[in-house]
């Protein structure tokens, strides 16, 4: 099936998310849509999927214009979508999720569950997925949930499959499996639109690449184009993917974590005997796929969760058993992984957000009284220092862009003498300019002699910042390696392979992504 978009335009208020986008996806090809976060990729796909109405432009299937009034129409036309945030009902079973919206029914409108299970098994067997139709979604791993999403799309006989940032939550090895599935689907005639901002994956799997930036198509490229070329096309200028930083000069141990074990409500171990040190003047990065205990680790350090056993000492002071307030007052700066959820109060002013964790301390307060003038003065100083672009410090934090919001969080956490900085996903969803700024501030904090703990699921970020790397898998530390360790080794470790084995395997086999890297090197030579 050939799919064509002509002049698609979608506006939200005065913001043009898609500006006259043209795109042709031929039958049986993997077409990558490459662009930064916020470039308008997902908006475009939601238009294609009938989720948003375009303000202008048309969609053609096999050269015939179609009009989608809701996702139901798009599905009927053979378009399936695997969303970045899975569209699965957590309390339903696999079979229920797969048939939702086109349920096989017996008499009286009752669902024919036997038929539903059969549909799941049929597709599951065809592609070698190991999925139990009666398992509840909330009990499945992320990778399995993604396969359910693919089954869901295929069971509706999708001939064009849209994959929106499918690898964000996968280990490199799971990513490899997904790439295999994508090729298999393509070979059986399904067209695939692969949305991503990860250059290496695009080069590994795409047949054609379309790059969009700020809502516009800025060019197309072949998969053999060098990574730097794709990157500059994507961000609009030539970029240096690295961070300028001097070698670390680690001092004595600042943070000492010993034997941390954390259980969740069901008694499952979220952290299992975690021990490591962070020295003053050193950046230690925690690498790992999302959901392998990183969140729990930072929350235990901050005092949001209690471990069953273990200790966290900061310059000899035990932090376990202390309240969040006491931990913050001990000199811990904390940048949470989800700034809108945990870092900012959206309908507080920027000034108020800048004192969110020090609102009751001098000079902002005395006794129970707040001093608004001090709050304001502080805000004006910090917004200049951290380059927060806003009309007024009295504006709501919700009026800021993502990058500026993150700068507010950093300004708050880094504007006092720190004895430890913990930053989770410090640059998630930021544009390249903001990323550079945030990274340089973090490195500057390290150079002040502060121990810095970074948690990131982006290997690029880990490699750019870390002096040492801790790889976590299922609540355990797989290994601690120096910064600059080989990507393939890190990737294998993120899938739980111990360091020594990971080195051997990486040397023996090349992963699909590794092949693409090698291809680049050959192109370059």
């Amino acid at each position, binding site marked *: 099936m050939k799919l064509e978009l002509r002049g698609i335009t979608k506006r939200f208020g005065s913001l043009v998310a898609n500006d006259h986008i043209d795109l042709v996806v031929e039958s049986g090809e993997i077409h990558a849509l490459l662009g930064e976060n916020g470039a308008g990729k997902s*908006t475009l796909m939601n238009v294609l999927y009938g989720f948003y109405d375009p303000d202008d432009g048309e969609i053609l299937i096999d050269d015939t214009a179609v009009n989608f009034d809701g996702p139901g129409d798009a599905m009927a036309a053979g378009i399936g979508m695997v969303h970045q945030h899975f569209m699965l009902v957590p309390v339903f079973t696999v079979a229920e999720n797969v048939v939702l919206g086109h349920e096989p029914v017996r008499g009286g409108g009752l669902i024919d569950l036997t038929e539903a299970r059969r549909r799941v098994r049929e597709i599951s067997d065809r592609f070698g997925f190991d999925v139990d139709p009666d398992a509840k979604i909330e009990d499945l791993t992320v990778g399995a949930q993604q396969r359910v999403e693919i089954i869901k799309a295929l069971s509706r006989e999708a001939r064009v499959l849209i994959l929106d940032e499918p690898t964000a939550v996968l280990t490199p090895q799971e990513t490899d499996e997904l790439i295999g599935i994508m090729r298999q689907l393509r070979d059986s005639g399904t067209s695939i639109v692969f949305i991503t901002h990860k250059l290496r994956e695009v080069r590994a799997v795409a047949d054609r690449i379309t790059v969009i930036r700020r809502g516009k198509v800025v060019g197309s490229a072949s998969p053999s184009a060098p990574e730097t070329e794709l990157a500059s096309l994507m961000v609009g200028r030539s970029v240096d993917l690295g961070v300028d930083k001097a070698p670390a000069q680690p001092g004595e141990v600042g943070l000492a974590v010993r034997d941390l074990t954390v259980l969740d409500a069901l008694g499952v171990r979220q952290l299992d005997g975690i021990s490591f040190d962070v020295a003053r003047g050193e950046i230690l990065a925690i690498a790992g796929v999302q959901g392998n205990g990183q969140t729990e680790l930072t929350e235990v350090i901050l005092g949001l969760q209690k471990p069953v056993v273990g200790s966290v000492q900061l310059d000899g002071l035990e932090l376990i058993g202390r309240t969040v307030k006491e931990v913050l007052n001990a000199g811990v700066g904390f940048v*949470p992984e989800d700034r809108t959820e945990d870092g900012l109060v959206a309908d507080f002013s920027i000034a108020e957000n800048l004192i969110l964790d020090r609102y009751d301390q001098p000079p902002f307060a005395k006794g129970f009284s707040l001093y608004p003038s001090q709050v304001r003065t502080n805000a004006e100083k910090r917004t200049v220092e951290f380059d927060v672009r806003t009309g007024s410090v009295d504006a709501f934090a919700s009026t800021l862009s993502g990058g500026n919001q993150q700068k507010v969080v950093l300004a708050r956490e880094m504007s006092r003498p720190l004895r430890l900085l913990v930053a989770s996903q410090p640059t998630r969803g930021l544009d390249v300019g903001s990323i550079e700024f945030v990274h340089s501030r973090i490195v500057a904090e390290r150079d002040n002699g502060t121990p810095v703990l970074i948690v990131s699921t982006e290997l690029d970020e880990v490699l750019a910042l870390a002096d040492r790397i801790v790889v976590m898998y299922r609540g355990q530390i797989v290994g601690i390696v120096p910064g600059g360790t080989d990507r393939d080794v890190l990737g294998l470790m993120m899938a739980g392979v111990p360091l020594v084995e990971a080195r051997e395997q990486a040397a023996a086999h090349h992963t699909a992504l590794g092949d693409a890297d090698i291809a680049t090197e050959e192109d370059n030579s």
Partner: protein
Amino acid sequence: MSQPIAPERTQPAAGRTRGQQALHEMLASNWLATVLAVVLALVLSGVLIAAADKAVQETATYLFARPGDFFGAVWTSVSSAYVALFQGSIVDTSASTLTRMIRPITETMTVSIPLIFAGLGLGIGFRAGLFNIGAQGQIILGAVFAGYVGFTFDLPPVVHVVLAVVAAAIGGGLWAGIAGVLKARTGANEVIVTIMLNNIAVYLVAFLLTTTAFQRGDSNNPISPPLNSNSLFPLLLGSGFRLHAGFLLALATAVGVWWLMNRSTIGFQFRAVGSNPNAARVAGISVNAAYVWVMVVAGALAGLGGAAQVLGTEKVLTAGVAASFGFDAITVALLGRSKPLGTVLAGLLFGALRAGGFAMQARTGTPIDIVLVVQSLIVLFIAAPPLVRALFRLPAAGTEPPVLAVSPSVKEVGL
């Protein structure tokens, strides 16, 4: 999907003069929407008033023959009801003496006292993300505590009334605190718990009034002994009026609440917890402690409303001491957008509706229940500004503050 792209604020169109801009802003303001909501509610209630009027019903039978009669009858019924409402709540223009003329406004102020107290308490809860439906029970407990201190002890002037007021605050605070503690400790939904506490309070006061400690000995009725005169609020305008010092206390409390919410670290905590409990927790604020204290403060304020009833207006404790003030206070707090000044004004408005409602019922036979209709319609229209704007064809507001939009706490524990 990537981050949803936030619609940018609509900027005022270029090329407008300053005057046009000012007019635009006024039309788009919440203030105007509020006034229109009140007008709309009165109009709709007028339809009900007219529909139930005998003369209107009779003239409707020959509507097409003589429409003038019909519309005349409608006008007479509605206008006489609303004139009576006005005369019963603001100034009685038909009265012969000055005392009688101004009595309605003092009645309005008297009735508004418990509404203002309870509304202030509920407003704090709403801003802290707690749906406290329990002002009714908190008023009752405040009244029980204040009443008990009032009729049991024999203390010097000033000391007695102060003690009774403090007891009321403690009573209301403890009662609401139950919901706060359960919310903090077990996540129990405060909407359900406070509704249940309201019902329990009703039976509790009924039960207490059968016991020897509370029931006056000289009859079998469920009514307490009269309160000791030293425990009563002083009257403000002499014995000819019911208006008492509780009104001044209510106004002072409103100022206090403004300071608490906007200029104190406690209010900063409450607001932070209300807007984003997760961020508050990460910033070192104890969300659970805040839930407990918000409820205690809100309950204490509602308890003061109970004190105003028993120490000022009623001077005795009965099972009906709280009337329906606790439920009306919800609409007061919503109409006042949970802000102190707004709550005072909304309390006066609803106090006027209630005080005037009695006069209207007495003079024109329009049942006071219509006041409930007016109140609820006002709040519905306030809650849905687009509806009012659409009805009056007004420009859309630049930014509609989400006064009554979904509070984050609702998400956490379901109903």
